[in-house]
């Protein structure tokens, strides 16, 4: 069983939505990514696991325009792309929650949800004076949070810095879920959360998949990964050690591959 040939169970050969080949990224002398390939198929949850420093975050940053890889190829729906900045990936419908949570603490929840894609008022005020539709964005933010089942955030006018860690995470996840039209990428979304909040995020991941959106989920938490993932990309020392499924391998196997004690 080789890593790259694995596909979601029961699917014929399908075109990956996101396809990475031989991504290399170095930081001075540190090799963050050492030739990593990855395929994301429609409607699947692909988990990425690995030890600290294995290159998980660097991998998803290269997939989402936050870092530009030194070499390697990236394709979206079969089309070659070269993301130079995060907004390039966004323009292709790829939304990301970064590990360090790219939220603006002093701005309120609604402003954060719409940060970088604010909506203007219709009519001359919006066209001529570029006035923001603050009310409209607040209403939509509320609707979106309700739709996503995020009940802990009732007041969208609260500055994000006044929120708990879990609520901030919810804001970041909600932003990605609300705007992601092709792929949603979540880097350790449950790392700072309690049990109940973690379950909410996992449920959200399932909901996204059920809506047809493929999800890349980076996590340290094996039970979470084995709970929601269709396939698991095991990252080790800047390389992809294996791609497995919850059916083909146990948690113990996965940890063994992760730590180099075993190979797939």
């Amino acid at each position: 069983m080789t890593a790259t040939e694995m596909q979601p169970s029961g699917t014929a050969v399908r075109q990956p939505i996101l396809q990475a080949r031989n991504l290399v990224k170095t930081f001075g002398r540190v090799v963050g990514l050492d030739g990593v390939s990855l395929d994301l198929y429609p409607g699947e949850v692909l988990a990425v696991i690995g030890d600290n420093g294995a290159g998980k975050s660097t991998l998803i940053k290269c997939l989402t325009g936050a870092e530009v890889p030194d070499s390697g190829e990236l394709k979206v729906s079969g089309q070659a792309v070269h993301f130079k900045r995060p907004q390039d990936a966004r323009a292709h419908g790829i939304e990301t929650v970064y590990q360090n949570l790219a939220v603006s603490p002093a701005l309120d929840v609604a402003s954060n949800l719409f940060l970088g894609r604010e909506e203007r008022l219709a009519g001359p005020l919006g066209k001529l004076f570029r006035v923001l539709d603050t009310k409209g964005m607040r209403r939509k933010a509320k609707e979106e949070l309700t739709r996503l089942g995020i009940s802990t955030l009732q007041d969208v006018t609260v500055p994000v810095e006044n929120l708990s860690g879990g609520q901030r995470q919810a804001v970041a996840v909600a932003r990605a879920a609300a705007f992601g039209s092709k792929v949603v990428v979540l880097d350790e979304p449950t790392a700072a959360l309690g049990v109940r909040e973690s379950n909410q995020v996992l449920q959200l991941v399932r909901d996204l998949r059920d809506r047809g959106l493929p999800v890349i989920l980076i996590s340290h938490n094996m039970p979470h990964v084995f709970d929601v993932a269709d396939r698991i990309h095991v990252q080790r020392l800047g390389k992809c050690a294996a791609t497995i499924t919850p059916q083909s391998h146990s948690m113990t196997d996965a940890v063994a591959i992760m730590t180099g004690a075993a190979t797939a």
Partner: protein
Amino acid sequence: MAQQQTAGPPATGHADLAGEFLDRQTPLSRIRNILHRYPALSPAIVLLVAVVVFGLLNDRFLRFENLSLITQQVSVVGTLAIAQTLIILTAGIDLSVGAVMILSSMVVAQLAVGSGIPGPLALLAGLVVGLGAGALNGFLVTRFKLPPFIVTLGTLNIFIAVTLLYSGGSTVRGSSMPGLLTWTGSTFPLGPVRISTGVIMMLLLYGAVAFILGKTAWGRHVYAVGDDKEAARLAGIPVNRVLMSVYLAAGAVLAMGAWLQIGRTNAASPNAGVDLNLDSITAVVIGGTSLFGGRGSVWGSLLGALIVGVFRNGLSLAGLDVLYQTLAVGVLIILAVSIDQWIRKVKS
């Protein structure tokens, strides 16, 4: 395995909740939350108290002519404070605002008087000087990633030297200039009182900048960039373009300040306004805008400039030595920054 599941995270979640619970409880933290939400509130209270106290101490203080004098005295520094606020909101600082304004005013005056260029064109040239200076600062900050403090410390000296070289160190008197240049120093009657044109222009500029900061995407991006640059970048905001536009906008505001300065002093002097750099920072800081960026408002800076003006005027009416004015401003600055630090603890 089991270790990984149960370690840390749930515990931190609980600690967070507990912290928040306590925070909501005390009245003190409720005040802090309100001040945090409305950064212009604390300077507004300080200004109100100062006006009442000085009014009680001396009945000349509250006369219209005196209040009008205070606003005229703060009109130039108040305008510079707009530019300074924009830059401090991005977590920067501009030590060159005064020098840029003086350079711009000298170019305007020399072109109009020395070269006989019509007033409007001379003002336009002043605007180009302001934009050019802003572009230079912005370029150095965004392209070479130099700290704004260092960049503007350098350009401050450059602009001062260029001003002196260009003007030969001589002052241009207002009486020799076209009327348009000193128009900002004029007054017009409004009912029983006379209103200063320069003060009205400053207030209009405050209104315009407050509108842009509060109601447009650009304004929101300015706050986001100052708040957390990396988060702004990851959220898809073109950080360098926003920073560059802020320095350009500041330059345009400073050109406006140059016009006000010519009217106010009825002259253009290369040696004027040595204190204006620090005074503009003082106004912004007292106005509740955080030096760490991302929090504050231009209205706060207007209040800050007014507070300084009111203290100076009130203390001198009370017959105190001018040194006490300086002392009071010093105390105000430290007080304002302490309050800001305290407010920022809301972040937990």
